[in-house]
């Protein structure tokens, strides 16, 4: 049927007015579509796998999914802008305590977590600390990445060095490594790896940022002085000044490119070296995390998936989480693709087949389950996340190793932390 231009305009205008008035799109435009924002994983194969699973999800459910990846340092600002504008993705992948920071903006996902716990056992401690906010699961634990010691086993053997057991041992080994031109690589800059390593060392020496009450700042203590003195000597005798400018990827690159002899990192540095067939891959291995006077502690970095309250696609978004994490075969497939960088966040899955895929990953068995998230032993809170996002710990360490007195560095950090804890 031919329509005149006038008839077409009249029909189109009436239809548009109807859609705008009722806010219901026509049936033809009702295909369900969700969007998912995640970081660019340090195990790139798992991002590729996520895309494949997304395509299968669309085929199986008819729900279209758009998966966007951004670099880890940009995540915090991106979440903030989405919350502020109340627009953006439906689902977001969050690291550490971000669910605490955005608690009022995230929907309750306790029903999904309850189903997953029935299948896979309880969520591991760090996942619980990160996403279980004031009695409600504000995000669904997805996986966690544990920090271990990654080192050039070939160089250690050549120089007759033994893998260190304690942070003090590392100092002694580090002196030799630096002489060989393969210094230790611990970042002391504004990035997350600096906080991960700094926190682990603090805990091993019995130091803490905030007390168990979550209110009293405890960084000004003799244990912190010990930590700073350790950092000062390691910076001077075992490292190069480059660590002050490093990003999260720099220590990985330094080990992969054959410079660093030892780094504190998840297994991603090795995985990338192996997958890209770098000449250093054969020489890299891992050993257990280090201990100090107060025992062996290390950092765990759990990640979880949340859904914004402003999302208009809450049910389809929940369906995606159930598809990715609730189907054992899909979850296994996803975990396997990360080559043990992404470890399952549920207790019954800890002895996962991914740990048997490469003998160099065997050290991870049993690691991480009792590790801590940032801010420990203070309970998880938005304040802890703010202290993290303000990079107070690495800046305190950087001040100390570049000439500020230990006392002044600690006093500065104490003041900054007190301001955050005191704020309403």
């Amino acid at each position, binding site marked *: 049927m031919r329509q005149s231009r006038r008839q077409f305009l009249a029909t189109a205008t009436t239809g548009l007015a109807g859609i705008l008035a009722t806010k219901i799109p026509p049936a033809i435009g009702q295909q369900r579509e969700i969007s998912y924002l995640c970081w660019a994983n340090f195990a790139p194969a798992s991002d590729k796998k996520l895309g494949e699973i997304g395509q299968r999800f669309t085929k199986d459910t008819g729900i279209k999914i758009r998966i966007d990846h951004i670099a880890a340092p940009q995540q915090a*600002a991106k979440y*903030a802008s989405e919350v502020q504008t109340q627009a953006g993705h439906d689902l977001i992948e969050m690291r550490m305590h971000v669910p605490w920071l955005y608690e009022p903006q995230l929907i309750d996902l306790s029903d999904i977590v309850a189903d997953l716990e029935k299948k896979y056992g309880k969520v591991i401690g760090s996942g619980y600390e990160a996403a279980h906010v004031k009695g409600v699961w504000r995000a669904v634990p997805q996986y966690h990445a544990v920090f271990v010691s990654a080192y050039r086993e070939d160089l250690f053997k050549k120089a007759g060095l033994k893998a260190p057991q304690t942070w003090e041992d590392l100092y002694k080994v580090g002196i030799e490594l630096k002489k060989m031109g393969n210094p230790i690589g611990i970042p002391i800059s504004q990035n997350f790896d600096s906080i991960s390593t700094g926190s682990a060392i603090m805990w091993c020496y019995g130091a803490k940022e905030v007390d168990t009450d979550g209110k009293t700042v405890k960084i000004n203590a003799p244990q912190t002085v010990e930590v700073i003195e350790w950092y000062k000597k390691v910076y001077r005798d075992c490292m190069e000044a*480059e660590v002050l*400018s490093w*990003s999260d990827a720099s220590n990985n690159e330094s080990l992969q490119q054959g410079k660093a002899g030892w780094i504190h990192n998840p297994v991603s540095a090795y995985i990338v070296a192996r997958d890209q067939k770098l000449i250093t891959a054969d020489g890299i291995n891992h050993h257990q995390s280090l201990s100090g006077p107060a025992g062996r502690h290390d950092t765990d970095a759990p990640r979880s998936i949340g859904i914004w309250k402003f999302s208009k696609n809450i049910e389809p978004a929940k369906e995606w989480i159930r598809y990715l994490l609730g189907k054992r075969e899909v979850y296994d497939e996803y975990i396997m693709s990360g080559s043990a960088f992404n470890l399952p966040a549920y207790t019954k899955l800890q002895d996962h087949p991914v740990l048997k895929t490469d003998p160099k990953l065997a050290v991870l068995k049993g690691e991480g389950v009792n590790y801590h998230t940032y801010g420990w032993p203070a309970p998880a809170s938005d304040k802890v996340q703010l202290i993290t996002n303000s990079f107070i710990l690495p800046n305190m360490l950087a001040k100390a190793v570049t000439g500020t007195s230990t006392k002044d560095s600690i006093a500065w950090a104490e003041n900054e932390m007190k301001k955050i804890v005191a704020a309403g």
Partner: protein
Amino acid sequence: MAISDLELAHPVRRTGFRPRLREMLDRESFLGPLFISPALLLIALLVAYPFGMAIYLALSNAFIGRPSTFIGLRNFINLWDNDTFRQTFQNAFVFTGISVAFKLVLGVSLALLLNEALWFKRLIRGAVLLPWVIPTALSTLGWWWMFNSLYSVVNWTGIAMGLLDPPGPNWLGQKYYAMAAVVLVNIWRGLPFFAITILAGLVAIPKDLYEAAETDGAGAGRRFWYVTLPLLKPVLAIVVLFSTIFTFSEFNIVYVLTHGGPINATHLFATLSRQIGLESGRIGEGAAISLYLFPVLMFVVWAQLRFVRRQAN
């Protein structure tokens, strides 16, 4: 007497919509605002609204995603107690002062060179604009590779030529080097703007003034000092004004190269504002940081424009 004056003196009453519309369109008092209104609307939407929001947020204790209350100027006052902010304040003046001074001197020199009869004049003039044309984030990423501690081509070249001792300077990890690096990239990026604008000013200077000066026995130096520089003053004032504002509000270069580090040594207002306002969620405080220099810059704009107007008169 103009026709419009005649019409004003003896207005003819028109009836009907079209004649009345035509009559209104003839009136400057109606047509002027009509023409300017789309631009005004755009400014209101894209400039006035965000600016108003920034002021509103800066006067509140706004935290991302939570209700906020009005706290007056407390954010601005509290910022002075913050070490990082005071450091940023100092950084901004050092960064802007050094960058603008270098861009001015080098810009004038480059413009004088480009004004000479060169071979491939157009090609060279086009090439000079490249740093200004390439997206800053992309070009700065190139510089980041050049300064990167592991891959630095600057250090590699210096060491290979025997000019530097291994491992060479830690460009992005030590505060003075890091500031030098961000200043250098800012100069590299901003120089074409100075050079091309000043070149336009140079081209506009009448040749006979130089001929007259030459006849009077003035050498190249005197011709520059007594002819070129005085006639370039209005152009230089405008270029310096714009550059000062752009440089104070620089973001990309610092964000890509140093993220404000090491230990906040290169933070500028924009990068600190992002860190506090978006990454840490204290958006009220972040807005206050970004607006801190607004009164100062307003004064600079007023003073510079006044100077330009005086020169023009």
